[in-house]
């Protein structure tokens, strides 16, 4: 599976109601150690309700200026959430979530480096 297969797919909960569109995926770098970095592991998917557009980098808590632009994009993506990969039951034409899935904040915490 490649990323293009996933992006823009509908996301359904366990009852089959549409909860939004898949707009992005999130990786964490904590896999097996590699030469430069540890290898990446798929952490979850970003589901957006209203819009298919990207966050343009404003999903990070550290990105908040220009103020008006940041607020506008926050408004465009209101109601977006992160679902962990293990909460996904099946992927066919749409992404089916398990009944127990949690809506997590899509924001990325401050970069610690």
């Amino acid at each position: 599976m490649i990323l293009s297969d996933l992006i823009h797919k509908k996301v359904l909960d366990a009852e089959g109601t549409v909860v939004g569109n898949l707009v992005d995926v999130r990786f964490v770098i904590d896999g097996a150690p590699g030469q430069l970095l540890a290898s990446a592991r798929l952490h979850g998917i970003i589901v957006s309700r209203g819009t298919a557009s990207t966050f343009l980098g404003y999903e990070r808590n550290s990105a908040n200026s220009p103020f008006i632009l940041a607020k506008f994009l926050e408004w465009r993506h209101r109601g977006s959430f992160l679902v962990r990969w293990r909460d996904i039951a099946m992927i066919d034409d749409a992404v089916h979530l398990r009944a127990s899935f949690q809506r997590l904040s899509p924001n990325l915490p401050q970069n610690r480096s």
Partner: protein
Amino acid sequence: MKKLLGLALGILTAIGGFLDIGDLVTNGVVGSRFGLTLGWVVLVGVVGICLFAQMSGRVAAVSGRATFEIIRERLGARASMANLGASFIVNLMTLTAEIGGIALSLQLASSISPMLWMPVAAVAVWIVVWRVKFSIMENVTGLLGLTLIVFAVAVFLLHPNWLDLGSQLLGQAPKQSSESPATYWYYAIALFGAAMTPYEVFFFSSGAVEEKWTVKDLAQSRMNVLVGFPLGGILSIAIAACATIVLLPKNIAVTSLSEIALPIAQAGGKIALIIVLLGFVAATFGAALETTLSSGYTLAQYFGWSWGKFRRPARAARFHLTMIIALIIGLAVLATGVDPIAVTEFSVVFSAIALPLTYLPILIVANDPQYMGKFVNGKATNFFGMIYLVIILVASLAAIPLMIVTGAGA
């Protein structure tokens, strides 16, 4: 001298934006029809391009990434493809016009038909792009382009009625002028679009990477912007002023490059004419180099090919191949006998798509602390950046309707 050469990138970039063949003629047309009543647009455009070129230069110096790499990364494949398509067409049209412009300038100097000069011009541009070091290229064309300052000198030599010129700058329409508001605003947007053409930031930021600017060169980047673009703006107003003083009262319509040179001949005679012809050749040649390189830069940066004149051509093969193909297409278009200046007329339409999609990502990345560390935009820059984003959006939306209503300013 060394300081002056350090500013060559900014000067060359500004020449390509403000004084390329399309703009030389447009400025003359505007001056001969509207007087200096559109002078404020040039001012608005200069401030805008300074603002965003400074951001793109800073991003390039701090992160080492040129503008189209940023666009590709932030907007994603689809939206940046829309930008690439529009920008590339603007580039190609301007490049075509410039090759024709070099030929027209050389015709004025030599009386040899432009059709014969065109292949010579294209080959000359290619040789410079292929062989000449970036720094030598920018220094020579930047310095020779400065000869166009003769337009500013000519304004004084023509002893104009300063009161008239001043009141026109403040919006008082000249007595002889009878133009409709739609035409006025069409030219306003054309001038604004010319001042902010996207290839300026593509070229400026890629040039900064070619010159290997780092954080240490931020002051130099700022000086380049603050000298180059205002100079371009002043010269473009000076061209309009010369046309206003000499051509407007006599109802002489500007249709080609030779009418632009008329006021210069009247003001300074043969020597001034020689200088201005040299300036025409240098400016069109500089603009041809800028647009040729920009076509290579944008395509290579979108697709992630290796690019840059600092690499040997074999190490950036696709980058160089793109530019060769662009030059061949330009020559082929010119071979049909089309008027080179008319080619640029429709670039306004494509600029309307490219402008917002170019300047939004620059503003976003210039604010990104992960890229920029402590060199992110200040509050004032962001304030004006947002205002300009709105102006750009309004101009983009208005461009195509106005073009249709006025028949491209006829």
